[in-house]
């Protein structure tokens, strides 16, 4: 990191690190005990560590003078390392909580390791830690290549990445200590939320400033998606997290929303976290890495416009499909259902566009596991959006809601689509950024691919069975008109599926661990700079 910064940038870095340390100190001192003070100490430690690192490098030589004529890839490399670390943490905990549902006696007698506290560690760690780092890291890469411009400055990418990871670390350690807002995918407490706003504004500013320096007249479609991701996530995050702290020196707070409004705001946020975090950003990734890896331009530019605006406009309406048959007004449920079904059109347009792009490159898909990751991602994207639109239909949802079918749907999207496209992007990027032509071990990539596909299928199929069984048992009546099963009978029926799911997750995790090892081997002895030329952006037809 330090050797890529000029001396004056290192100085700015020292100042920012000291500011971070001071913020941490104020938090730790003001809160005096509890989660907030622990978090203050974390920021203090990080700030001091960074200040020492940068100050220690103040007398090192300046970086080569021609650096401004090259892309700035050091932050991307760091982001990929963080992606892999969070992958292991997030999936490791996923497997562990999956095991706990089969074998609850294995829970150690400490508060921090209880299922209810670990589950949000899994979701936050994997969505924001793994997914978020992958999005930020690849966005820096894609932005520079498609704009043929270097990042607008060298300090703010580090602010974004390090600050973002501090947010993730605050969030997950908070849950372990019992600090949570309880809002799904927005559990982090108020000061962490505020911190994320600061980081996000920096990210947006960097993005726009770099776009402004582009040497291509057009903004490539991947960037539209990354921009939608940045903008809409900001909007969702701020509105959903509005809260009044109980005390300025305590982590506890109450959301300003209550009851049915809170439910609507929460799922407007929740489903659009799916849409703009787990979908839009990753579509950006797909629209760049799939053409690059397959050596073919996106099949239809026109279709990519339609699907982009379709997704951006329709998704926002669908959150209320999480609240079918609840106390939410009926008209809002109906709107959510209708738009969810319409959403299938732009979703399949994107998936179809991706798959059609591979037409003529099928031999590459057969031979290249990296490209196969992306192909499978596009297929699972198509599958899970179809499933999603189906689940959003009110009578279907009456069966699936509250059951493991939802969990199956979630992981068909997240394992099959999100994780697969991330791995495809990582296997394309890591050799390139380290001056190599391929990953250290191609056989390991092949192994990872099959482990990932098998793991996903085992996970998803067992959860479909589990969910449908549950749903049917809950609503079954015997001939006397009484409910056939007690609730706990439906719990007992889940055991084999929960075991299978744990095994599927274990396979997936093993694949991710192989990936981390392979990346480490490839990054070791890195030979200088990325040996790429800027991708020529396809102009409009």
């Amino acid at each position, binding site marked *: 990191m330090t050797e890529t910064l000029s001396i004056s940038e290192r100085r700015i870095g020292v100042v920012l690190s000291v500011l971070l340390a001071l913020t941490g100190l104020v938090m730790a001192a003001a809160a005096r005990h509890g989660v907030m003070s622990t978090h203050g100490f974390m920021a203090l430690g990080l700030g001091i560590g960074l200040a020492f690192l940068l100050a220690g490098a103040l007398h090192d030589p300046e970086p080569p003078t021609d650096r401004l004529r090259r892309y700035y890839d050091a932050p991307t490399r760091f982001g990929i390392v963080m992606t892999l670390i969070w992958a292991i943490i997030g999936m490791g905990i996923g497997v562990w909580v999956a095991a706990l*549902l089969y074998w*609850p006696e294995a*829970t150690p*007698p*400490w*508060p921090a390791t*209880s299922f*209810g*506290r670990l589950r*949000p560690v899994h979701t936050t760690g994997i969505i924001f830690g793994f997914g978020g780092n992958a999005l930020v890291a690849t966005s820096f890469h894609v932005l520079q290549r498609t704009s043929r411009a270097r990042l607008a400055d060298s300090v703010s990418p580090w602010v974004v990445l390090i600050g973002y990871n501090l947010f993730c670390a605050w969030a997950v350690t908070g*849950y372990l200590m*019992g600090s*949570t*807002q*309880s809002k*799904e995918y927005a559990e982090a407490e108020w000061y962490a939320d505020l911190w994320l706003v600061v980081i996000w504004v920096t990210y947006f500013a960097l993005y726009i400033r770099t776009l*402004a320096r582009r040497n291509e007249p*057009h*903004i490539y479609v991947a960037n*539209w998606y990354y*921009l939608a991701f940045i*903008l809409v996530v900001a*909007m969702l995050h701020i509105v959903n997290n509005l809260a009044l702290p*109980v005390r300025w020196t*305590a982590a*506890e*707070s*109450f*959301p*300003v*929303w*209550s*009851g*049915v409004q*809170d439910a609507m705001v*929460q799922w*407007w946020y929740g489903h659009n976290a799916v849409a*703009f975090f787990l979908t839009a950003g990753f579509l950006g990734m797909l629209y760049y890495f799939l053409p690059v890896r397959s050596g073919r331009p996106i099949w239809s530019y*026109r279709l990519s416009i339609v699907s982009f605006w379709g997704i*951006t*406009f*329709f*998704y*926002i309406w669908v959150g*209320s499909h999480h609240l079918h*048959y*609840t*106390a939410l*007004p009926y008209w*809002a449920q109906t*709107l*959510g259902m209708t738009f969810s079904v319409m959403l299938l059109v732009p979703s399949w347009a994107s998936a179809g566009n991706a798959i059609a792009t591979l037409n003529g490159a099928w031999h590459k898909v057969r031979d290249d596991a990296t490209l196969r990751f992306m192909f499978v991602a596009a297929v699972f994207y198509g599958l899970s959006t179809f499933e999603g639109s189906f689940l959003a239909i009110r009578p279907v949802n009456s069966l699936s*809601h*509250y059951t493991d079918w939802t969990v199956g749907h979630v992981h068909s999207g997240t394992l099959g689509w999100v994780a697969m496209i991330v791995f495809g992007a990582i296997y394309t990027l890591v050799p390139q950024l380290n001056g190599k032509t391929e990953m250290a071990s191609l056989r390991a990539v092949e192994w990872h691919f099959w482990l990932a596909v098998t793991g996903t299928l085992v996970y998803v199929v067992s959860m479909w069975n589990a969910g449908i069984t549950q749903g049917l048992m809950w*609503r079954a*009546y015997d001939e006397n008109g009484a409910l056939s099963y007690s*609730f*706990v009978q439906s*719990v007992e029926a889940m055991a084999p599926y929960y075991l299978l799911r744990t095994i599927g997750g274990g396979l997936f995790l093993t694949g991710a661990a192989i990936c981390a090892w392979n990346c480490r081997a490839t990054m070791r002895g890195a030979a200088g700079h990325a040996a790429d030329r800027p991708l020529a952006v396809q102009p*409009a037809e």
Partner: protein
Amino acid sequence: MLKLHYNLEKVSMGLVAAIIVAASIGGIVEIAPLFTIDKTVEIPEDLRSYTPLELAGREIYIREGCYACHSQMVRSLADELDRYGPYSLAAESAYDHPMLWGSKRTGPDLARLGGKYSDEWHVAHLIDPRSVVPASIMPSYPWLTRTLDTDLLSDALATLARLGVPYDEDMIAAAEADALAQSHPDSDAVDGFLERYGERPATRVFDGDPSRLTEIDALVAYLQSLGTLTDAPYRTLAEDIQ
């Protein structure tokens, strides 16, 4: 259209503005009207807010992530009415910051839990679920027997009052004392508690040990309050049947 887009792609702030507009409409249409339903969906007269002890229990419910496995929202479906009771109304959670409707039923719905089991059952179940439900996969919560921290209670009530929950100044000032009083029905402080909260909240030694106010006291008090804050769902269901 294509031409328009062709030009839009060259203006980054134009693209930004277009994204913001496209992504705002749905949210505004669906969320904005819900802020007027406060006036259209009336809050039932008998709706009470949580007592300080129940509120502390609710915070423990949140802290431990119970909502990850239990919903508190009975849907208007026949089997749910038969299994759990009357379907949930919006008004019931009007004072819930945040709502805890949940999205997954690894365990059963809890919206109508209050009064279904005894306090002893709850204590045993929380400490070791499999001692009362052998096939349960719920984790044990042995640490809940520790002393309840009531430090933040007054501030919590004050914060909620600012958000519109009907806590008055007496209630805020006496929050800590009231938490203690609710679980000590024989103490003198209970008169003040009854004056402020009425006869409806249960006043009992929830965990069977009067010597200490524990987290489990608070959590059980909260669980026993679920579904009892108003009778409106029962009235609505009766009207539906007629």
